[in-house]
């Protein structure tokens, strides 16, 4: 057993109405790779925020190197050798790498020295990074490297990583793991947060599993199967979704060699995108975040107009039509961002039901809204998709992520579409809600609709897709049957590791 680095004793944190952490205790040894495992809402984030000084525990103590440790703010945690890489990056697109790193430091050295140190550290750990490049031009994987290098410059004893692989291709994940193993070998402990079980089994030598804010187990993940870990995490036996076998149908949606500039200066333009979607088919589109997924959804939903004939719905050119024109013809969409895009946060569920359904459901006559009919439509969605909420008068933002997602996807499915486009349908959603949503999409395909799922969750795509394609810098690969594809194949379709290979080979 290695010398203990950080010991947590009975950490408890309650928010109004919910206990985020209840009496959590465990130890992290020096140089240990320790996994923190749990579903969304299990309390992982709150726990690491307490270690990083962002949240103050109500009860319990921490010891670092055997000494009491109670950071009041992140800078204090950093001074004590605790660093953290967040899931959502805090970087400025319009500044270069070195400037971004300097902004996160207490006493940044002159930029020229800093640039040199960034080069040194990034070479040493196989994370190639050009300090002079604008962050806005970097891929998600490269942005993460900026965050990691920023942490490494502080020479941390404990590095906390929150869901680091959600933005990486499988090959990039391999490279990240090499870096982390190297750090661990040099004595830096790593607290690795994830809900991806295979990753944790490959990387970590100890895992603490949280469920509902409590610690349910500490174990060696290499000695457990992924299924055992999952059941510990969820607390119930999981059943994979069912899918009826079905013959191939007619083409319902066809995109033909479409190129389209992004509406966002740091977005990704679509380049020569072509695909077809048939009745009853589930087409999964993979890709690392920021490779054109948002643009693809906007283009298909009608929010970003395209040349008319390039997009054909049931043989009709629809590229010029806006969202409502396409909805009337049977194409609906559910964007990735639930709050603010698919739903208005400060409006009731009734008003949010009206948002996309007004025309197709006939909820307004000559522009005058039939609120009673709209409310009963909202009630239908709530009942059929098991949305847990007191009623349709509740504001959208009061719902949990999973419940709002069920509502949003349910709303679109209730429109009885011929084609549905969804982006990240189960992102940030608990396992039970995710299963409901996947099953609903499969059922819709079973009824003959074409379903297009854009997702960064490969397991999800492999579970529900008939065919498979990947987005890489705005280009879409050829569509391949999903059956028989390995994770490695998919990784290569997603663009592999690009230039990242070189670094480790050179340093190896």
């Amino acid at each position, binding site marked *: 057993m290695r010398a203990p680095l950080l010991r947590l004793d009975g950490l408890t944190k309650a928010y109004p109405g919910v206990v985020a952490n209840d009496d959590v205790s465990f130890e992290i040894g020096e140089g240990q790779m320790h996994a923190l495992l749990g579903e969304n809402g299990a309390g992982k984030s709150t726990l690491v925020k307490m270690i990083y000084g962002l949240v103050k525990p109500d009860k319990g103590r921490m010891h670092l190197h055997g000494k009491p440790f109670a950071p009041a703010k992140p800078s204090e945690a950093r001074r004590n050798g605790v660093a953290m890489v967040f899931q959502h990056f805090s970087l400025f697109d319009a500044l270069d790498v070195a400037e971004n790193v300097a902004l996160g430091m207490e006493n940044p050295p002159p930029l020229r020295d800093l640039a040199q140190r960034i080069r040194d550290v990034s070479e040493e750990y196989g994370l190639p990074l050009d300090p002079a490049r604008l962050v806005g031009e970097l891929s998600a994987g490269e942005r993460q490297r900026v965050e990691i290098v920023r942490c490494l410059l502080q020479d941390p004893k404990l590095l906390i990583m929150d869901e680091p692989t959600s933005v990486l291709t499988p090959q990039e994940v391999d490279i990240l793991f090499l870096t982390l193993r190297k750090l661990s070998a040099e004595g830096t402990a790593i607290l690795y947060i994830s809900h991806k079980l295979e990753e944790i089994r490959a990387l970590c030598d100890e895992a603490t599993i949280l469920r509902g804010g409590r610690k349910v187990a500490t174990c060696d993940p290499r000695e457990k199967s992924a299924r055992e870990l999952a059941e510990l995490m969820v607390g119930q036996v999981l059943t994979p979704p069912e899918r009826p076998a079905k013959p191939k149908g007619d083409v319902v949606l066809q995109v033909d060699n479409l190129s389209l500039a992004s509406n966002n200066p740091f977005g990704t333009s679509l380049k020569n995108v072509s695909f077809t979607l048939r009745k009853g088919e589930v087409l999964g589109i993979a890709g690392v975040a920021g490779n054109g997924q948002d643009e693809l959804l906007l283009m298909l939903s009608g929010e970003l107009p395209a040349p008319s004939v390039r997009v054909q719905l049931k043989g009709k050119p629809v590229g010029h039509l*806006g*969202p409502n*024109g396409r909805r009337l013809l049977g194409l609906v969409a559910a*964007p990735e961002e639930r709050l603010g895009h698919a739903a208005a946060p400060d409006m009731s569920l009734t*008003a949010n039901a009206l948002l996309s359904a007004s025309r197709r459901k006939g909820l307004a006559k000559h522009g*005058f*809204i039939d609120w009673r009919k709209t409310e009963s439509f909202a009630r239908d969605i709530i009942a059929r998709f098991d949305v847990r909420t007191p009623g349709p008068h509740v504001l959208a933002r*009061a719902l949990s992520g999973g419940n709002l997602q069920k509502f949003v996807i349910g709303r679109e499915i209730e429109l009885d579409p011929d084609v549905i486009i969804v982006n990240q349908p189960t992102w940030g959603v608990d396992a039970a809600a995710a299963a409901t949503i996947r099953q609903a999409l499969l059922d819709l395909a079973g009824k003959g609709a074409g379903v297009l799922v854009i997702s960064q969750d490969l397991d999800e795509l492999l579970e529900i897709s008939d065919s498979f394609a990947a987005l890489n810098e705005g280009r879409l690969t050829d569509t391949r049957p999903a059956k028989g594809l390995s994770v490695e194949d998919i990784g290569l379709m997603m663009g592999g590791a690009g230039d990242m290979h070189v670094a480790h080979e050179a340093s190896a």
Partner: protein
Amino acid sequence: MIRLEKRKEPSKFWRIANPFLAVVLTMLAGAVMFAMLGKDPVVAIRLIFFDPIFSDTFGSYSRPQLLIKSAPLILIAVGLAVGFKANIWNIGAEGQYIMGALFGAGVALAFFPAPGWYIFPLMVLAGAFGGFLWAMIPAILKTRFNTNEILVSLLLVYVAEKILAAMALGVMRNPDIAGFPGSRDLRRYEAAHNAELFANTGIHWGVVAALIAVIFAYVMMTRHMLGFHVQLAGQAPRAARFAGVSPARLVVICLGISGALAGLAGMFEVSGPGGQVRIEFATGYGFTAIIVAFLGRLNPIGIVLAGLLLGLTYIGGELGQMILQLPGAAIQVFQGMLLFFLLALDFQTNYRLRLSKGVRT
């Protein structure tokens, strides 16, 4: 230690209570100001807020004035509120008000001295069109070149004022009275006169128009898809685009509605209480209406109440000048304080003040 805590949901109670509280605080601060000017604060406040309606001496004069002053404020504010809800900020209603008056008066002066029932309706259309046209300048610049409608609409007020002066001194000047600036008095031209509909009530066509606008706005915001889209665009612009709302179309609609209503207000004023195109015709209704819109919570019913209150301060201010020799600027200070206190108080709709003991170690 005092801490600010963001509320999970904006407080409904304070949303309603704050405008009333702002009025009370304004009265208190106003009383202090009057005391410092050496006037009896109780008398001054009573003179401004109560005497115009309840006094035996002035009531018969000032009661009808209440509707005359409030109607343009309400008419303009109702239009502005629609845009404000969509985060489209028309600050230049004063300019649109002037252009509406000029267009309306232009039609009247073109027909003078012919009789005809159709002249007044034509003036109404022309007034609305004038305001609409003036508001289309910031609208089109915004949709084409992404300019800021706040700046463009505001700056166009000063352009409109110059045009007003040029008209009063030039084309529209009364040819029968040599040497005096200003147009013919439309009140003496029967076909164009926006006369009182019921004697000594102050009710003229502008009051009727304001009432109709309030009802239309209320129905639109609560029952019509356009109102829903306006609110959606204001609260969640991306969700609005997802719902199929075109942002450019909404800019044109919102600025168009508020411009047309401001133009109408100007037209009813110039053909009635104002009477003629003069250099000093515009008295700030377009700006005060912004306060009315906010004090009324951008809600048509609230705007009626706020419009009446601000109308009252206009009349009370005039009484104060006549009787207590209060400075004319006092009333602008009053109106400014109202908005100031309201915005300050609104802080607590979204935040909560917490007193906590210093428990930090």
